[in-house]
């Protein structure tokens, strides 16, 4: 990974020096090793803080909504999954494609600091990725862990390692797709009874503190005015003592991104309460695949989405059970 980081930094520096781009969006050092932060670099000096390591899980594409409208070109580093969000944003006319230079970068799966901590490494100071095993250095000692066991949830089910858009690429080693089937957990829920499902979701959703992080991070949630910011909606409260508003929030959020959610996994990654939001989004994806034909949002920047098209022979709502026509 070190070589990839160096190459990226070098390329960013070239682009800024030559004036080809006015800024580069990437990651900079955070307070700890494990929390690199998304950042916009506008000069070669600023690049001193540039990092790219196993903790750069953040999807940078959403920053382009503002950045691509600024004076001058913006270069951005996109991992394979981020490239789907990019296309979706282009399709919805949220970003200005001509003002953007996409650099497709290598990704070997990003790491979940909580899972590493659970393995007994607190205060991680460095991580060296060597294939299936990673070497962890921490204040309380060093050791090795299996990468598969400490991947971010979204990386376990990675859609694949092919960028859907790029102007150039920095890929030095071969990449692998995720090993898990992303619908497995959805199917488990479908197999439960209504009562069991209700209990499951009530348990999950009542943990919600309505921080709105899942909405704010989502590249599909790019509305200038969001329903949840309307105080008259009855669903805008940030903290609730009643379970219903939580359910309503989650149903509406998931519905709004249906057919547009690329399954980038950011919502679940940022949720401070560890609510499995991907299980909501993936239900829509699975139903859409089953009822209207397989569809992957963000695969291209053109064409209609499943909810903005129809066929005369579509299923009747009353007949659909578990995403299948009864």
């Amino acid at each position, binding site marked *: 990974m070190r070589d990839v980081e160096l190459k990226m930094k070098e390329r960013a520096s070239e682009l800024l020096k030559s004036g080809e781009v006015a800024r580069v969006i990437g990651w900079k050092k955070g307070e700890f090793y494990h929390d690199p932060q998304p950042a916009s670099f506008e000069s070669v000096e600023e690049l001193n803080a540039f990092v790219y390591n196993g903790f750069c899980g953040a999807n940078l594409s959403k920053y382009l909504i503002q950045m691509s409208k600024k004076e001058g070109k913006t270069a951005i580093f996109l991992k394979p999954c981020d490239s789907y969000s990019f296309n979706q944003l282009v399709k919805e006319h949220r970003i200005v494609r001509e003002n953007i230079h996409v650099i497709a970068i290598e990704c070997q799966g990003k790491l979940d600091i909580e899972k590493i901590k659970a393995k007994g490494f607190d205060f991680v100071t460095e991580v060296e990725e060597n294939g299936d095993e990673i070497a962890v250095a921490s204040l309380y000692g060093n050791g090795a862990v299996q990468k598969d066991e400490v991947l971010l949830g979204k990386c376990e089910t990675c859609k694949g390692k092919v960028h859907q858009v790029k102007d150039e690429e920095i890929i030095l080693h071969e990449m692998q797709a995720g090993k898990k089937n992303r619908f497995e957990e959805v199917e488990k829920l479908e197999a439960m009874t209504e009562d069991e*499902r209700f209990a499951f979701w009530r348990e999950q959703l009542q943990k919600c503190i309505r921080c709105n992080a899942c909405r704010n991070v989502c590249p599909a949630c790019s509305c200038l005015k969001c329903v949840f910011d309307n105080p008259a909606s009855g*669903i805008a409260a940030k903290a609730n003592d009643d379970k219903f508003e939580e359910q309503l929030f989650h149903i*509406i959020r998931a519905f709004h991104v249906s057919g547009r959610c690329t399954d980038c996994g950011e919502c679940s990654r940022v949720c401070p309460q560890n609510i499995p939001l991907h299980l909501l989004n993936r239900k829509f994806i699975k139903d859409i695949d089953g009822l209207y034909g397989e569809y992957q949002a963000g695969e291209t920047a053109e064409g209609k989405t499943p909810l903005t098209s129809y066929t005369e022979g579509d299923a009747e709502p009353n007949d659909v059970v578990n995403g299948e026509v009864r």
Partner: protein
Amino acid sequence: MQNVTEKKEFTPNIVAFCCNWCSYAGADLAGSSRLSYPANVKIIRVPCSCRVNPSFILKAYQQGADGVILCGCHPGDCHYVTGNYYTRRRMSLLFSFLNYMGIEKERTRVEWVSAAEGARFSAVMNDFVQKITELGENKRLTDLRVKEGE
């Protein structure tokens, strides 16, 4: 002495979204033909079934509805040509999703009723009210504050 624990008979609150051009006219015809449908069906007139944002349905539940039914022109007969085709996709996904969250599948329904189908309107409503009465009160999608002090 009056038995205070005696159960009141359950009459469900039903919200029916009806499109202006077909189903609302169908309801009108049912009325003028003196075909009855239960009084606990509250009709909300909308310009097209596709005007019904899924959050309208959720809001109805939040406000105490026990069942929500959405009526529009038959596919192919939409006044705006294609509106109900979009409704159909949205509602298929929404209903399946609500059920995924543990909400009873039968609480929400879509029926196509034309302006000439007064008898059908009446039959659909009677049937729906009966189903919801069997299902009982909506407890899962209700805002506790709405029912307070009842």
